[in-house]
């Protein structure tokens, strides 16, 4: 069975399903028993009780630590950090405790927790409620990092995240929350670590994360209709572990690639993708890997500024064209590079 659901409802239904299936699954976070500001957890307290769906005070650090301790002792907590911007307050617990417990204990402990959070700009919420910080977490061995691009993937990936015996950071994007698409019920688990080929094409590969997958498809359509360029669009779905093989095979075929995310370009996960792809597909590359991301500024709040800040299909097209036209200009090479990555 399958019906149209919003991203929010897909996550909500998956949480309910997991809680029904497994008593050990609990949900905790600020206002989760009231549904939270986006209603992602709406109805769960009514269905499963306030013992398993726990409102917490504004204590991000300790609450994340509670989830770690609960996970180590047999529960499967799904803890929510309301905005990824506030993961800054919980990183000690996530990085120094959750990520390292299995390793440091020589395998005695495991930490099957899911940390759900959401990031992204576009709502005029300003610099402290709009960030995309997933790259930090990909630099922490012991964490897995998942970034769904739509409702169906969110449902399927969340199932896998909850089933996983490791700490999984599940990064949603608030701009996707109210988009609808068909979501199977029950959602089948989508394996962590396998990329999704969203559109195939022979001319250029676009690797896009989260909200940028939709933007990449828009870009691909426009490249096809206006320029006759066939872009292949791949959604890695999970950043850690990363399905490099699928990405690299595509790039060796197309010879050109754009990697796109909403986070600030510098130090973003696109750097890792570019570094890995240039190494993996070097002999086949016709142009340098192009990166698309946000500029190197905090997120401004004024609408035209935020709109200009926010990367989208247009920036992907521009980057694709740099890659496609590579070799036709005479600028000094590092100027080209700077151009492409800013």
């Amino acid at each position, binding site marked *: 069975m399958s019906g149209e659901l919003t991203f929010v409802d897909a996550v909500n239904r998956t949480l309910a399903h997991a809680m029904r299936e497994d008593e050990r699954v609990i949900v905790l976070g*600020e*206002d989760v*028993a*009231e549904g939270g*500001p986006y209603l992602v957890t709406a109805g769960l307290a009514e269905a499963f009780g306030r013992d398993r769906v726990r*409102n917490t*005070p*504004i*204590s*991000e*650090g*300790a609450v994340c630590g509670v989830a770690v301790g609960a996970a180590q002792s047999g529960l499967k907590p799904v803890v929510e950090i309301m905005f990824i*911007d*506030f993961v800054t*307050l919980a990183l000690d617990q996530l990085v120094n405790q959750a990520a390292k417990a299995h390793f440091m204990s020589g395998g005695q402990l495991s930490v099957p927790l899911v940390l759900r959070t959401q990031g992204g700009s576009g*709502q*005029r*919420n*300003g*610099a*402290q*409620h709009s960030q995309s910080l997933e790259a930090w977490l990909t630099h922490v061995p012991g964490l897995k990092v998942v970034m769904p691009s739509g409702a169906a993937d969110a449902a399927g990936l969340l199932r896998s995240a909850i089933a996983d015996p490791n700490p999984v950071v599940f990064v949603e994007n608030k701009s996707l929350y109210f988009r609808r698409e068909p979501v199977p019920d029950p959602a089948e688990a989508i394996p962590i670590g396998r990329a999704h080929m969203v559109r195939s094409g022979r001319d250029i590969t676009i690797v896009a994360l989260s909200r940028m997958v939709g933007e990449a498809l828009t870009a691909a359509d426009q490249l096809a209709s206006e320029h006759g360029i066939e872009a292949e669009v791949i959604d890695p779905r999970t950043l850690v572990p990363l399905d490099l093989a699928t990405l690299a095979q595509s790039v060796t075929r197309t010879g050109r690639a754009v990697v796109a995310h909403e986070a600030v370009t510098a130090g973003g996960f696109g750097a890792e993708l570019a570094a890995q792809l240039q190494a993996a597909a070097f002999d086949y590359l016709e142009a340098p890997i192009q990166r698309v991301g946000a*500029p*190197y*500024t*905090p997120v*401004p*709040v*004024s*609408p*035209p*500024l935020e709109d*200009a*800040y926010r990367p989208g299909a247009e920036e992907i097209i521009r980057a694709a064209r740099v890659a496609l036209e590579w070799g036709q200009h005479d600028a000094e090479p590092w100027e080209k590079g700077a151009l492409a990555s800013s």
Partner: protein
Amino acid sequence: MDTEVAVALLRTMWRIRRFEERVAQLKRNLQVHGLIHLSVGGEGVAAAVCGQLRDDDAVYSGHRAHGHAIAKGAPLNTMMAELMGRETGLCRGLGGSMHLVDAEHGFMGATGVVGGNLPLALGSALTSHLTRTDQVTVVFFGDGAVQAGHFNETINLAALWRLPLIFVCENNGFAEFTSRDEHSTIERVSDVVAPYGFERTTVSGSDVPAVYEAFGEYLRAARSGSGPFLLECLTYRRRGHYEGDQQKYRDPEAEEEWRERDPIARLTESHVDDEAATAIEREAAAEIEEAVRFARDSPFPDPAITAGLVYAA
């Protein structure tokens, strides 16, 4: 409290009230954007506290900061322009509702991180101490911030270093959609800090003269270098947590009760005659209309400005 002071405070309160009600409207009309937290019903605290400060005293606040900024002297025009994202805004359209700053008037900043400015305010008080000025720092925060680790870290440091800092908690009994009893077993914030041994008290935030007097006493002490102090004001959030909040958790009875405790109505009743009060209200409304006009007539900023404002030169 003498009439002159009451009139001045009432003027501030009406400016805040009319400003915020207008902002609510503009938000519905999509001319103000993002997360907007209003302080309608709690204006007395902002007025009575900031009304006693000098421009060179520092005020820090949180996400519900419009009132504090206005009371500290931030111009309505540039505030409204900031909320409407204009180039003439206080922060050139880069900050918005949760990140207002007016350094000229000592409004050193709001923050969207609950309790995030608590330690910054302590840093400001440290500067006063080390540079031997008599400047005082005030930090506003809600009852929700008290459960955040940085609250206790800051309280402990403030007590240890005895800095001229006044903590002003606006305890409205709610953090977003959950009431205080789901956040802590300790109802009163002044009780939370009891072990630290500095002076603290709880007053009704609707009783403007009481806030004025309690704060005034702490201010005089802080001015001569003592501190810290904590003033807890019991307030009521008459609107949703943010504009757009469905408010399913509302208790209609409490609401009725608190409507009666409206700080504006109470101060007017006790200290200002109706005619004068009406004039003040009208004046405030006119100022706000002027602010909206100012903002509407201002251009949006050029996106090119952002790159140059990441680093100070």
